[in-house]
């Protein structure tokens, strides 16, 4: 189909369908017509760059550049000191702010709860893999909340957990005194994390099941023939065999808890009661949107980024170690 280009070469086919190519380079190429081109015409050689350009441009301009901008911004002042360099002032203020300290200690709580958030889908995936009666049904039911928005999940649980709501009514009927699930500082954070786990364990479940697909079924059969009990099978066959998957789920679950609980916090507690359910992402949003302290918010963002980096590096290390064990 080439037009106006009679090259003997078989491989590169320059002209004709360069629909997406920049007009300029196409013109120049036609001018250089008879020159034998070994690795394709100019437009062809540029094609890969043209294809990746939109993606690279968007990622660099709207993700990587803002990161630098934000770090830079965190060393400047807010309000009257807008634009002036203030050194570490914002970071010192963060350390002084009880709300931010709560946010950080809540991150610690998330880390402590991480094993639970990984173990639940892991166990359920094991049972499904071992073909508990109705395993297909469970699989699709469990995954369902994972596709719902945190906003919807939060709104539903707001109703369920309201002080005069159905959960407390149920407790009362059973003779247990009602609990102010979302209004009690020591309780609210656990409730929100619990709802988050309820809403997301299906994702991890699917990842675990994908991991199980790579597990050597002969090993399981051998263990069973040897009379191993279920806990023994889990400990000696499944956990070592799935170490990579477990590491991956641990990291993605941690990242999920750090970056996708905003919707729940916003709908269920608004950071309350008494600021007890703050997380860094909520703090950033409050400082940026409500308090008009963008530079302080940037400092909090940088702290969050460092936390994420630590998680990311841990992932690389864990995955490498898990890979080495195989």
């Amino acid at each position, binding site marked *: 189909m080439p037009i106006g280009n009679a090259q003997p070469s078989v491989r590169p086919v320059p002209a*004709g369908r360069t629909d997406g190519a920049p007009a300029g380079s196409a013109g120049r190429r036609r001018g250089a017509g008879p020159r034998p081109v070994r690795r394709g015409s100019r437009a*062809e050689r540029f094609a890969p760059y043209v294809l990746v350009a939109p993606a690279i441009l*968007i990622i660099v301009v709207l993700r990587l550049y803002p990161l630098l901008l934000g770090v830079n911004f965190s060393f400047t002042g807010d309000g009257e000191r807008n634009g002036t360099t203030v050194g570490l002032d914002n970071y010192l203020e963060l350390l002084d702010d009880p709300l931010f300290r709560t946010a950080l200690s809540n991150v610690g709580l998330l880390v402590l709860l991480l094993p639970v958030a990984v173990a639940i889908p892991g166990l359920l995936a094991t049972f499904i893999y071992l073909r508990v009666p109705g395993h297909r049904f469970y699989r699709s039911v469990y995954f369902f909340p994972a596709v719902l*928005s945190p906003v919807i999940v939060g709104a539903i649980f707001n109703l369920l957990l309201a002080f005069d709501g159905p959960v407390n009514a149920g407790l009362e009927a059973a003779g247990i005194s009602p609990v102010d699930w979302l209004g009690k500082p020591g309780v609210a954070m656990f409730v929100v994390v619990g709802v988050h786990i309820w809403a997301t364990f299906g994702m991890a479940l699917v990842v675990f099941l994908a991991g199980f697909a790579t597990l050597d079924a002969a090993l399981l059969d051998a263990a069973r023939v040897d009379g191993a009990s279920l806990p023994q099978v889990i400990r000696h066959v499944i956990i070592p065999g799935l170490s990579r998957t477990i590491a991956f789920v641990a990291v993605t679950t941690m990242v999920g808890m*750090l970056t996708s609980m905003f919707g729940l916090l*916003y709908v269920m507690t608004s950071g309350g009661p008494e600021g007890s359910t703050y997380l860094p992402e909520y703090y950033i949003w409050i400082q940026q949107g409500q308090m008009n302290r*963008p530079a302080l918010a940037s400092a909090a963002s940088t702290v969050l980024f460092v936390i994420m980096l630590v998680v990311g590096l841990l992932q690389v290390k864990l995955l490498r170690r898990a890979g080495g064990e195989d």
Partner: protein
Amino acid sequence: MSRVRLSRWLLAIPMSLLALATIYPLLFIANVAMKTRRDYILDRFSLTDALRWDNISTAWNSVGMDRYFVNSLIVVTSSVVLLLLFGSMAGFALSQLRFRGSSALFLGCLAGLFVPFQVIMVPLARIMADTALIDTYPGLILVFVAQFLPFTVFLMTSYYKTIPREVIDAARIDGNSVYGVYRRIMLPLGTPALLSVGILNALFCWNDVLMSLVMMPSADHRTLMVGVTSLRGQYSDDIPTFASGVLIAAIPVLVVYLFLQRQIADGVAAGSTKG
């Protein structure tokens, strides 16, 4: 053997209870949406005595859910189309074409995966304000595309890697330009991956609240999820209408899930195993 059987059946009990706990909240909200206010206050648990759609139509018409719904639809559709276009273009180039700097560019795309929106929220909002894109559809669309592009490029690249190079070579011999190969070969061959990634991206964008809240804050421009959060304040004493709003926001996802459950799960699994 029978002992194993028995223990399996025993396991099925907690698993069914958990399944019930997973489904119940949604049934509860659907039930509440059908009730009258009086019924709800008198008894929260009882099944509604009739399928009443008044609350739903109130939520749809007078609260502005219709408007929010259209806003979400516009933003999500445009974002997904752009994500699939840019993601497949880059995925094709990075997986099948040899060119200088390709691995550096791939790493650059991946780096985007490690920058969550929360971390760049402040400077990004500022960039959008400086370019007058804040509180506009294109602004939120760009933010969505930037958010989910690294993941999309990554998945498309690993999918296209599985296509043998001979297919592309043959198409080139047949006289296709690089762009022709993209359009005639890679796009059609990529359909399963595009479908899976597209649905996942649609869900992510549809369900988002933080980006929408920061980038399109005004009442006219609220997306559906932001609209649901605003419902709560307005209808705190009219729970059935509130529940109807929540139900309206959940129904599209419910329908997508019922029909495309497989693709969604495949997408999630692909993201994990190709890491």
